[in-house]
């Protein structure tokens, strides 16, 4: 598991990186470019994080910029607020999705609101990185998908990459952005590799909040994000129907125009996510898109997601998580209307 200490700097055009390493590379680049950028969290320093996403950063940037915090999540976020007030740009790691809840108060009542409360004078330039979702056979609290809680919290932005390339670009954009950004990292995709252009200039900020059509199709649209993008692409490839796949990328705000444009063409929409369906973000998508496309929809927007139960023991997770079969079963139902 040991890797070299120093994070690859720019120089070579293309590098084959895992998603984890792509984020590391983006973080290192952001830290080199802006001395105000800090990394903080549990075990992010010497260990490099339990997923090694911050590996090498403390060696390069020192303990003052890569901070192993006490074991207290509210403290991580609360002190990050203070650092942001002082002009720093902390990138906080919450070790696992299930451990963000002790910080829920600081995130919802402080991080999300201080810009407004200060009449626009305070910038909450904070990124909260969260290894997100299931599929790695972990014990309880290590496989949650809490995005709906935060998407219902005005003042926050939420983005989530599905590929190493996006991960590399999006983490850098999130760090530059003046608003607080929740950055959800699909942990089961950490080890997937792809070519990443580490020299490409940072795209315009608006791109961060744009969904991407990752596969064109005409029979139905699959909207997904993070870990489910690969699942949906595999489902689309395996199926005889011509399925369009959209990677939402930004969950707050949602890029409705891109989704609506697609649904206008396909007439059918399925939203696929890992979180429990009840009250999940799929509901928001369904409600908004149905309002926008009432006469275009040939079937109700169907939601494919986790069941409405706490994330089950690992031996059941492959049944709990939407997979190729579950996605296609829902496509069958949508097509039957």
């Amino acid at each position, binding site marked *: 598991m040991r890797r070299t200490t120093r994070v690859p700097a720019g120089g070579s055009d293309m590098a084959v990186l895992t998603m984890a390493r792509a984020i590391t590379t983006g973080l290192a680049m952001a830290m080199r470019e802006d001395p105000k950028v800090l990394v903080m969290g549990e075990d992010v320093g010497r260990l490099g994080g339990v997923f090694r996403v911050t590996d090498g950063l403390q060696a390069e940037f020192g303990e*003052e910029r890569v901070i192993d*915090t*006490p074991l*207290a999540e*509210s*403290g991580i*976020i*609360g*002190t*990050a*607020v*203070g*650092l*942001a*007030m*002082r*002009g*720093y740009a902390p990138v906080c790691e919450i070790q696992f999705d299930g451990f963000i809840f*002790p910080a829920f*108060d*600081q995130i919802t*009542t*402080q991080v999300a*609101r*201080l*810009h*407004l*409360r*200060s*009449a*626009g*004078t*305070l*910038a909450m330039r904070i990124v909260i990185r969260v290894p997100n979702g299931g599929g790695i056979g972990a014990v309880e609290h290590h496989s949650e998908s809490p995005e709906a809680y935060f998407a219902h919290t*005005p*003042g926050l*932005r939420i983005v989530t990459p599905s590929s190493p390339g996006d991960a590399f670009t999006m983490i850098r954009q999130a760090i530059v*952005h*003046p*608003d607080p950004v929740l950055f959800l990292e699909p942990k089961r995709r950490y080890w997937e590799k792809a070519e990443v252009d580490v020299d490409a200039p940072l795209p315009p*900020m*608006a791109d961060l*909040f744009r969904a991407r059509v990752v596969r064109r199709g005409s029979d139905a649209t699959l909207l997904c994000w993070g870990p489910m993008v690969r699942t949906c692409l595999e489902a689309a490839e395996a199926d005889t129907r011509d399925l369009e796949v959209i990677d939402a990328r930004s969950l707050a*705000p949602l890029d*409705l125009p891109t989704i609506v444009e697609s649904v206008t063409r396909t007439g059918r929409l399925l939203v696929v996510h890992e979180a429990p369906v009840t009250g999940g973000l799929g509901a928001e998508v369904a409600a908004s898109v149905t309002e926008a496309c009432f006469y275009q929809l040939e079937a109700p927007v169907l939601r494919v997601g986790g069941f409405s139960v706490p994330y089950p023991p690992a031996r059941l997770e492959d049944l709990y998580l939407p997979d190729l079969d579950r996605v296609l079963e829902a496509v069958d139902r949508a097509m039957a209307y």
Partner: protein
Amino acid sequence: MAVDGGPELVQLLTPEGVLVEHPDVALVLTDEQWRERYELLVMVRRLDAEATALQRHGELGLWAPCQGQEAAQVGAALATRPTERIFPTYREHGMAYVRGVDPVTLLGLFRGTTLGGWDPADHGFNLYTIVIGDQTLHAVGYAMGAQRDGAHEGVLVCFGDGASSQGDVAEAFVYAAVNDAPVVFFCQNNQWAISEPLERQTRIPLFKRAAGYGFPGVRVDGNDVLAVEAVVSAALERARAGGGPTLVEAFTYRMGAHTTSDDPTRYRTTAEGEAWRLKDPIERVRAHIVRSGIADAAWLAEVEGRAEQLGEHMRTACRAMPDPTPTSMFDQVYAEDHPVMDRERAWLTSYLAGFTDAPHHAGAGGGQ
């Protein structure tokens, strides 16, 4: 109910207005400084009374009075340098005043026209924080930032006796301790958290909490402006020099209601209030400066006049405060463009344009 601060209480000016010596703590003021402190205390009390009256007249939805805590707030604020940041709760009107914040600025929050609305950088005075304890972590983070900047700055953060029970405050102690953060935790123990007496939060004096985290704790007479200034100054000096955090417990009393919505007769005795009235933070300064000839009746009357002007200013300015415009609620939620804000702002604009007369929304009602 505690009235007596016990043997560890640091006091330099007795309730009778007599200067006393303390083995570790000392502060000598010039006559001018004594008058300044007296005037500040009087102005703060007036500010507070005026806001309470404005609430009674329906101009504010709520007010959280600081009566009784003027010395704690004035003394602590004076101990800071103007460049050093203060993190208040929702009751630090006295600190705001010392920092030069126009009291009218504070009223917006209680009138319901803003959620705070000031720029902390303007007077080094952070926004009021209503969720109990949250600001203690902000202050520690800010202090960690000061360390990284190489600034020899201290940070002052306020919280109450009730707040001492919140997990966030304990986490702030941990983060401050392990980082040697230059922060002074200033706890105004006013004996009550709404209706709950100190005994519901702790079995031992609060200043002792610090020892469990490895930094010093001091109990100071919160009604003694001199002692508070002296103790907080020393703590800030220590912080600036890299000595890390200190907890200062200012032993004081909330003379009034928790807020204007509260009815303290339901839970505490008038005898208690009477006992504390004898320790009034302003009376003792007046006694001292009059007895020692620092101030005469004419000057005291002048101060009253200036207090009256402040009240007048607050009344006029409060009544003149405009309601926020409807779409202002969308304007500063995000620092950059946001499609949902655009969509909802546009909707509300056209919705309101559809009314021939004003839509039937009234002003603010009650509140807690």
